[in-house]
C-alpha cells in the first residue's frame, strides 16, 4: 500500500511516514520546492529500503490540482493513505494590516487543502476505500487575538473535515482530523513557547501513524491538548474576550 504526503518537508509528516515505511509501505513525497521531495524520497529509500517517489504540488495553484490527483491515482493504484500537512502560520500582526498575508494564511491552510481533498475524496468515495488524514490545529478550536487568522483558517478546516468525514463514512473512507499542540519544528523555531508543552515531531508523528492505522476520527497530539482545549473552549465568552490570549 502507499502513503502520499502533501507537504513533504514537514518533520511531523516525515516522522509519521517513517512508521509507514518500516511497515513496508511505499511513500510518495509531494511538495512545493522542486528538489526537496526528491531529497526525502532518496533518504527514505536508503533508510527504510522502501519504495519512494517524489512529486510536485503547489497548494495555492488550484487549477493544477486536478491533474496532480489524476496523475497520482494513475501511477499509484495502491494508494491507501493520504496525509495532508501543508500549512502556513504567517504573522498575525502583519495579517491584520496586510490582506495579502491574511489571504495567504487562509488559502494555504484552508482553500488549498479543500481543493486537493475534494478531488481525492471523490475518487476514494467511488473506490469505497482509503484514509485521508489532515493536520488542523488546536488553534482552530477557539479564536484568540494572538493568532486568529491562522486559527480561523484551521477552525474552518476542522469543520470542513468533520463534514467530509460524515459524507464519506458510508463509503468506508476514513477522515482523520489531527490537532497538534506546540511542536518543535521550523514553524515554531525561535518562539518563546512553554518548554514542557512542546512535543517532538517524532512523538506527534507516531500518534498520527497510530490514529491513521486505527482509523480514528479526531486526535489531539499529544493527548493532553484535548484537556487543555476543553478548558479553553469552556470559558464563557464574556470572560474569554477580556483575556490576553
Amino acid at each position, binding site marked *: 500500500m502507499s502513503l502520499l504526503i502533501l507537504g513533504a518537508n514537514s518533520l511531523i509528516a516525515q516522522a509519521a511516514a517513517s512508521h509507514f515505511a518500516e511497515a513496508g509501505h511505499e511513500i510518495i513525497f509531494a511538495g512545493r520546492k522542486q528538489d526537496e521531495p526528491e531529497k526525502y524520497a*532518496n533518504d527514505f529509500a536508503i533508510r527504510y529500503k522502501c519504495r519512494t517517489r517524489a512529486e510536485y504540488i503547489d497548494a495555492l495553484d488550484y487549477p493544477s490540482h486536478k491533474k496532480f490527483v489524476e496523475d497520482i491515482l494513475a501511477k499509484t493504484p495502491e494508494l491507501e493513505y493520504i496525509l495532508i500537512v501543508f500549512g502556513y502560520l504567517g504573522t498575525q500582526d502583519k495579517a491584520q494590516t496586510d490582506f495579502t498575508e491574511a489571504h495567504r494564511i487562509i488559502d494555504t491552510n484552508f482553500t488549498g487543502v479543500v481543493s486537493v481533498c475534494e478531488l481525492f475524496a471523490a475518487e476514494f468515495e467511488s473506490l469505497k476505500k482509503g484514509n485521508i488524514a489532515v493536520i488542523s490545529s488546536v488553534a482552530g478550536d477557539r479564536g484568540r487575538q494572538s493568532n486568529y487568522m491562522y486559527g480561523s483558517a484551521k477552525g474552518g478546516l476542522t469543520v470542513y473535515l468533520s463534514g467530509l468525514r460524515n459524507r464519506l463514512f458510508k463509503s468506508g473512507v476514513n477522515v482523520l482530523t489531527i490537532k497538534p499542540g506546540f511542536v518543535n519544528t521550523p514553524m515554531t523555531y*525561535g518562539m518563546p513557547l512553554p518548554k514542557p508543552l512542546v512535543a517532538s515531531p517524532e512523538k506527534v508523528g507516531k500518534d498520527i501513524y497510530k490514529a491513521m492505522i486505527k482509523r480514528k476520527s479526531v486526535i489531539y497530539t499529544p493527548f493532553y491538548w484535548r484537556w487543555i482545549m476543553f478548558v479553553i473552549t469552556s470559558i464563557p465568552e464574556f470572560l474569554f474576550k477580556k483575556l490576553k490570549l
Partner: protein
Amino acid sequence: MKFEETELSGFGKYPKAKCKIAQPSGLFDISEILKKNSVIPRGLGRSYGDASLNVKGIVAETALMNRFISFDENKGIVKCEAGVTYKDLLDTFVIRGWFPAVTPGTKYVTMGGAIASDVHGKNHHKVGSISSFVSSFRLLTATGDIIECSRENNSGLFWATVGGMGLTGFILDCEIQLKKITSPYIFNKAIKLGNLDALFEKIEEYSDNYHYSVAWIDVVAKGSSYGRGILLLGNNAEINELPEKLKKRSQLKYIEKKIAVPFEIPFNTLNKLTVSLFNAGIYLTARNTEDFQHYDKYFYPLDFVLDWNHIYSKSGLIQYQLNVPLEKGKEAIDKVLKKVVSYGGGSFLAVIKKMGNQEGILSFPFEGYTLSMDFPVKKGTIEMCQQLDKIVMEYGGRTYLTKDSILDEKTFKHMYSGLWEKWMKIKMKYDPNNKFTSDLGRRIGLCLS
C-alpha cells in the same frame, strides 16, 4: 531566517555563553546567514568545551540537514548530509552488514562534527581516525563557493578541514566508507592489571593483535595498586564464531533501551569518596573475561544513560585528553597521574589508549599514548589542568581541541607548533575575513575576530 537566543554550552556544560542559534535547512539558508554574520556549524553539541559556541556570530545547527543521499550496497560507501549521525548510520546499516569504520564513544555525533573533530575510536592504533574513511566532502566556504574536497582535489583544504573544528567552512555533505561486518557483536577480552607498569606492558603486548584496544585506569588507587586498570580488547565477531542464541539475534532488528538522568543533580555527586568507591568498585568486581558484546554496549555504554553529563551538576565538567609520544609516554602519564592525585582530584572515568599517526593538520592523534580524564569544574580544577598542560608540553604532547575549554593561545600554539602555522595559511586563503569563527577559535588564536 529565524533565530533562537539561548544560553548554550558544549557537552561538558562548561563554559556557557549566550548564543544566537539558527537551524538552516540547506545551502540557501546558510548562504543567507553568512551574508551578515560569522558562523560556527554545530551538530549535536558533543564537543565538550566551546568549540561549537560563537558569541560574536551565529551558531548554525545541522539538525535539519540529516539526509542520506546515496548508498552503494556493494562497496559500503554512504553519501550523506553533514547532520546525519552515528545513530542514523548504525540504525540503517548494521543490519545490512556495514559498520562505521571508526566510531567515537557516543553515537550522538554528526558526520560533520566527526570530520571537524577528526574523531578517533578504540581502533585508532590500527586504522586511524574517521578522516581515514572520508573519501570526500563538499565544503561551503566564506566566499560562498562550494568546494569538493578530497585527497586528490583541494587536498590542502581537505586536511585543514578534518580536525579543523569547523573553522574552514560549512561541510554540506560527505562520502564515507563503512566497514563490512557479519555480526553486530564484538569479541571482548578483558584483562585485569594490578599496576601502571603491568598496564603499559600489556597494552604493548596485545594492541597489535586486536582491532580495538583501550584501557580503563583507576586514577585514585594508591601504593602498590597505583595505576591499576583493565585492558579491554576486541575484534568484530564473525557470525560463525557466535553461539546459536546470538547468531539468531544478529538477524533481528536491534531495539535499544535507555534510561535518563532527567535533571541536573543540584549538588556535586562526584567527590573524592564517590569517585574512589566507583573506581574501586569497577576494579574489584571486574574479572578477566572473554565474551561477545553487542556493539551498543561495547562502544556506547554511556549512551545508555541519556544526558549522563547531568551528574556533574550545573558547574559542569572538564574532559582533559592528552596525547604524548610513545617514547617516555609512560613517564609522562605517570607524572600526570601523580599531579592529579596531588591536587586531590580523581577522575570519574579515565582511559588510556595507544594511538597511531594522523594526517589532518590539526588532528589530535599522533603515534603515542592518550589519556583521557574528566573532572568536575570546581575551585582548582582549571589550575590543575594548566599544570597538566605543562607536563604534556614538556614531553612534546598535546591536548584534544574537541574536549578543550581551557587552553590559551600561547599554550595551544606551543602544543601544535609547526601545525597551526600551516593550517592558518589555508584558513587565510579561504576565509580571509573570518566568516567562520567560534569561541574556541578566538580563545586559541585560530580566528582573528
